[in-house]
């Protein structure tokens, strides 16, 4: 089954939804695809209807109004629809998106695609990070808010940034004992002073932060700065967590080590952009020091170097939901102009209207990135027998051996050691390989290049792909 449309939007988080809304309101035919059961992405994660809840927060109101606006457009929405490939069809000269989903067309073609695939938890390896009970902050949120599951009764939260505060706060609200929240950065206040002005207008965010702090104070959860988990231990799941104070460069001070009995360790080292589709399409990439990975180059209207392929929101660099909403609007306007649904004046007006807001959001994102960065020392937590590639169970020692063979890129390391050859195809370990290689081979991380991505971007059963019912290969 093949469908055609003017614009395909991949990812129905705030950015993708806004793109679809704006494009559709300008008269475009739009298909919006999302791999989750219901739209909203991570930011507006919808609670299943089976759960009753009472939420009059601003966040909830913002989500509801966006969803309602989407419902009032003619956007064709397919959820539970997993995009596994983007191809170029030389016959039609259009992009062809291949989708796994029961009620969704298997192939959809359009001249324009906006990729809004968001971000996922960034991980750092340390001894025991692969034990059951060690979860990311994002996973904790999903379990708590979306599945109604308490991850555990006695937790430590370690990492950096505001997201882990949210996780800690939600754990406390759900009845977990959170012994401590460990922020690995020192001197948050000193680092934050240059950015004080960017807090202007971010009242809601500050109010959220205040609420988290209130919960933690109430439960006597200690909030330590310059501390981090260094080791998790346990027989079949995590039972003991060892933490340590860090020096200025982030190296653990061994004399400061303390151990705690826990049943849950939540690690939150921020988010990392989901860049699979950009590497699949081989668009021009550039290295971001702040994020430690390669990101797609975009022009002023958020188009990548591939004609008709746009990138908005966190997938092109962590910037938050508000920025994604703004970028989505601009990309939608630009595509509308290209398809004669809008004139360039309206595009200019849109740019003018959003320019200040975009700059403000970008500045705030930069601040978060600077203040809550991962210090170099934390990349030495892993020991020779620590697993780096979780899918193929490849240890740090094996990765180091691959570097010693003479590997000159992360792809060489992958080919020698098998890291990145498992089911997740390097989603978790890809950037870790670059970190390790950069240290061992004494080169810049960007000199390590990046892993190529090939379809399918997620494992897909053969039955989904094979020819059905004598369908002609189009």
């Amino acid at each position, binding site marked *: 089954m093949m469908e055609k449309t003017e614009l395909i939007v991949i990812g129905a988080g705030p950015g993708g939804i806004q793109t679809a809304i704006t494009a559709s309101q300008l008269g475009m035919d739009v298909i919006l695809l999302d791999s989750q059961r219901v739209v909203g992405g991570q930011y507006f994660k919808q609670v299943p209807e089976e759960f009753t809840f009472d939420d009059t927060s601003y966040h909830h109101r913002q989500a509801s109004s966006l969803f309602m606006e989407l419902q009032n457009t003619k956007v064709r929405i397919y959820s539970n629809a997993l995009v596994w490939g983007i191809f170029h069809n030389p016959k039609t000269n259009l992009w062809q998106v291949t989708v796994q989903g029961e009620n969704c067309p298997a192939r959809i073609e359009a001249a324009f695609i906006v990729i809004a695939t968001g971000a996922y938890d960034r991980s750092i390896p340390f001894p025991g990070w692969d034990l059951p009970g060690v979860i990311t902050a994002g996973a904790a949120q999903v379990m708590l808010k979306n599945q109604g599951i308490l991850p555990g009764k006695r937790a430590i939260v370690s990492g950096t940034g505001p997201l882990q505060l949210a996780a800690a706060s939600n754990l406390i609200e759900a009845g977990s004992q959170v012994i401590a929240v460990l922020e690995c950065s020192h001197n948050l206040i000193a680092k934050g002073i240059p950015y004080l002005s960017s807090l202007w207008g971010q009242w809601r965010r500050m109010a959220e932060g205040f609420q988290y702090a209130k919960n933690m104070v109430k439960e006597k959860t200690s909030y330590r700065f310059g501390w981090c988990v260094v080791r998790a231990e346990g027989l079949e799941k995590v039972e003991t967590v060892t933490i340590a104070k860090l020096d200025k460069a982030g190296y653990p001070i061994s004399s400061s080590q303390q151990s705690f009995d826990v049943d849950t360790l939540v690690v939150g080292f921020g988010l990392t952009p989901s860049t699979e589709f950009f590497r699949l399409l*081989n668009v021009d990439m550039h290295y971001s020091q702040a994020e430690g990975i390669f990101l797609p180059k975009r022009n002023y209207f958020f188009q990548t170097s591939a004609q008709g392929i746009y990138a908005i929101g966190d997938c092109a660099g962590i910037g938050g939901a508000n920025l994604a909403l703004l970028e989505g609007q601009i990309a939608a306007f630009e595509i509308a102009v290209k398809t004669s649904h809008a004139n360039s004046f309206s595009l200019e007006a849109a740019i003018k209207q959003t320019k200040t807001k975009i700059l403000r959001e970008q500045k705030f994102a930069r601040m978060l990135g600077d203040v809550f960065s991962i210090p170099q020392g934390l990349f030495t937590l892993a020991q020779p027998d620590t697993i780096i590639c979780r899918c193929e169970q490849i240890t740090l020692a094996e990765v180091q051996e691959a570097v010693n*063979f003479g590997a000159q890129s992360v792809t060489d390391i992958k*080919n020698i050691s098998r890291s990145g050859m498992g089911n997740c195809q390097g989603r978790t370990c890809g950037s870790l390989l670059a970190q390790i290689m950069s240290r061992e081979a004494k080169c810049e991380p960007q000199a390590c290049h990046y892993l190529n991505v090939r379809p399918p971007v997620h494992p897909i059963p053969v039955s989904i792909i094979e020819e059905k019912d004598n369908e002609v*290969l189009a």
Partner: protein
Amino acid sequence: MNTSNTFDVIIVGAGVVGCSIAYHLTKAGYSVALIEQKHVGAGASGANFGMVQSNDVEIKHSIPMVLKSYKRFDSLEEELGMSIGFRRIASLRLLSSETQWKNSIERASILPNAGIPYEFVPPERVVEIEPAVSPGGLFGATYASYQGQTNPFLLMWAFLRKANQQGLSLQTHTEVKKLLIQSGRIIGVETNRGSFYAGSIVLATAAWTRRLGEMIGHNWNIHTFRASAMVTERFSDLQVNSIVTSADHIEMEINGPKDSELTVMALSQTQEGNFLIAQADRPGEVLDGKISHVAPKAMSTISTRFFPVLRKVKIIRTWTAPTTYTEDGMPLLGPVEDLQGLILAASFRSAIVNSPIAGEIVTQLINQDHCDLIDISPFAPERTMTQADTVYRVKSSRTDENEMPD
């Protein structure tokens, strides 16, 4: 290690052949640079199933070379000091028609006499050898019981690890822009990272050989086609012991429409338990690494025809291999006439099995100007080619190097 940009030998192309040549040359004491436009094995060498096979050898002139090289695999791991994941494995070509059967008769009469076990087996025997094959519609199979499979990455890096220890200068992400010639002699290469000079240059460049030749006005008769492949997750519910291929391409070559995907199935289970399945081939030179929008479907369909249980297995990656062939099925191996210092080592059938001997042959050519290991005169790079009877070829009259798929 040589830190200047002048060497005894420059090898272009870090595929399995280039890596072997680098190993043998550095072992012989030469200062060598191995120049590669992307990463090691970025072309067909990193995109194949690692088959170490002799049963598809070109039968007129190539058997001595393949036999000698195949024997090298017995001691390669010991010589290179590490595992390359090599194991003996049988090769089974499923025949679905009398035409396919007839096509293999000559081969079945010649190979066993040359020391390569190869026989026809009826459908009942096929199921004995490979219980998972669905025998419906099968005419039988050709069975080569003594073939092999290796991990192509470990093979390349086994050569390279030793070569690096022996002083190799490995230059990846370095693209050759120009071949530098002076007074009828090749003296070096110009790349995006500066120029490198040497008395001898070896092109182990497979699918990129033709365009390098065009740079200097030589017409090197290599053709390229795009093979596609995929790998599944580990799946232990299904055991496949041999390398299983189909032979449908034979009719398609004769009767099929000019621009169709030529779907040959090749299926193999790796030692880790993943399935490497199927191969859809497209005539014409496509070197961008992008898989076509129809190949995954073609591969899935043909593989489930023979192994229905694969339907529920998940594919984790698809890719393409820029595969080469020559009209007579023999490599371009030897010095280029009327241009001093240039040696070609390209388009082997196949590169993996011939890689050990290719390294030794090129080292002899550089050492003593001729090769005593085997007679390589039939492989002269600029010979006139006559179409041979080959096991698998895409008729050159059907291919147009510059034709866009329609």
